[in-house]
């Protein structure tokens, strides 16, 4: 898989921004098929930084109903990436 296919987009929320500021950890929405090693490589390639650690998690499948049709909210996979000290990623711009 291409690096740009693995990393879909950054997740920018209050919580994620706080982690950027305090711990140099960046959160991305990633392809669910990617493993931690692939994610690490992709981030390093795309943003030219050194990744120390990757934590990966799935969001819970939430029940959703539209009229009589029942289903689930799409499950997304988030990866929290710990960068090496001194590195940062521009798009988070913190």
């Amino acid at each position: 898989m291409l690096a740009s296919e693995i990393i879909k987009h950054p997740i920018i929320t209050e919580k994620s921004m706080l982690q950027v500021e305090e711990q140099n950890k960046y959160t991305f929405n990633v392809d669910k098929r990617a493993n931690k090693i692939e994610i690490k490589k992709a981030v390093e390639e795309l943003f030219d930084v050194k990744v120390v650690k990757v934590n990966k998690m799935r969001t819970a499948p939430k029940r959703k109903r539209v009229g009589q049709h029942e289903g689930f909210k799409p499950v997304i996979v988030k990866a929290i990436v710990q960068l090496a000290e001194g590195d940062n990623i521009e798009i988070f711009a913190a």
Partner: protein
Amino acid sequence: MSKLEKLSDSKVKLEVEVSPESFEHGLDHAFNQIKDDVEIKGFRKGKVTRKVYEQHKGVESLYNEAINHAIQEAYADAVQEYDVAVVAQPNIDLDVTKVEKGKGFTFTAEVAVKPDVQLGDYKGLKFEKQAVEVTEEEIDAEVDKLLQQNAELVLKEEGTLEESDTAIFDFEGFVDGEPFEGGKSENYELKIGSGQFIPGFEEKMIGMKEGEEKEIEVSFPEDYQAENLKGKDATFKVKLHEMKVKEVPELSDEFVKEMDNDLETVKELKEDAKERLTSQKEEENKNARVDFAVSEATKNATFELPLEMIEQEQKRLMDNVRQQAKQYNLELDQYLQFSGMKKEDFESKLMDDAEKSVSYNLVVEQIGLEEGIDATEEEITAKYKEIADQYNMELEQVKQAVNPAAVAHEVKYRKTIDFLVDNLDLEA
């Protein structure tokens, strides 16, 4: 850095540079102001950081507020730096397209300043002294006024209604045989000859007797205020209940005793009246002198009065009137209607007043400056006491509420005027 350029006697142009830091500070300020109302997905309201906000909405959305803030600060600094006596809001000119984040910008502000006053003659102005004299007639008139005030309405049991009697009567008016609105009343009290009713009505009542009923035919005047009654012929059914006549008390020692506890005889009353009239005239005389001194000194001085100063004063005067109107529960427009003034007339009158008071102020201030008139600590304290007495407040309260500079100014103004009056050349 900023530059100062004098455009005219009463106008300066300031060129002020805003540093990148203070613009940044302005942006911060602008963001803090709107922060609590910004909603961006992923953030609770009011928790958005400035970086995220700028990515979403663009830093330009902060410019307006930021520029205003930065200009205000820079302008105030510049005013202080050059020590200009600003009297109005500045006219600010700025090329907004040149503003950029991370850089400073320059703006120009044109503002009206207190003009330089070139004083003319103000000492030894010739003023024709008016003798303070009270004539016999004036005293008599004063006494008569007192008598009239104490006149009583006495029931008149015999005879007919005459001019200047007061009639108490019922009436009902008809136009074309139909009663009309407001045309009916009972036990109405009317002084004959006062001209309260439509012309002809009061005259036709003269000669009526107590208890008499009469039909009075009159026509409404063409300029009557009710549209539907203008120029119409009307018949009033009138029933006279009572007649009252005004009884003026006789001028005697008894009357004087009853009127005033301190006075005993007619002679004393007259003397008292004379005293009052004299002091009244002296007061008028003094006012005339003050008026003359100030207006003459102003006439002799040359200065260029900025329009903004006048307009500001006019606005202040207007607000005063509005306040007054409010006490009667009226809007300004209504108030003007009642006092029979047209809005344009009123405004131009205020404009004149404003111009006068502003120029007087300037001239007196300048004279005070040149004569080295200053308010001492004691005088200021005395003035505070005066204000406290006037409003029934504690001295300390007043000191907190009223700006000492304003009080000092007031004291100085008074002293300067006294100085002017003292230096009048009184012609006998």
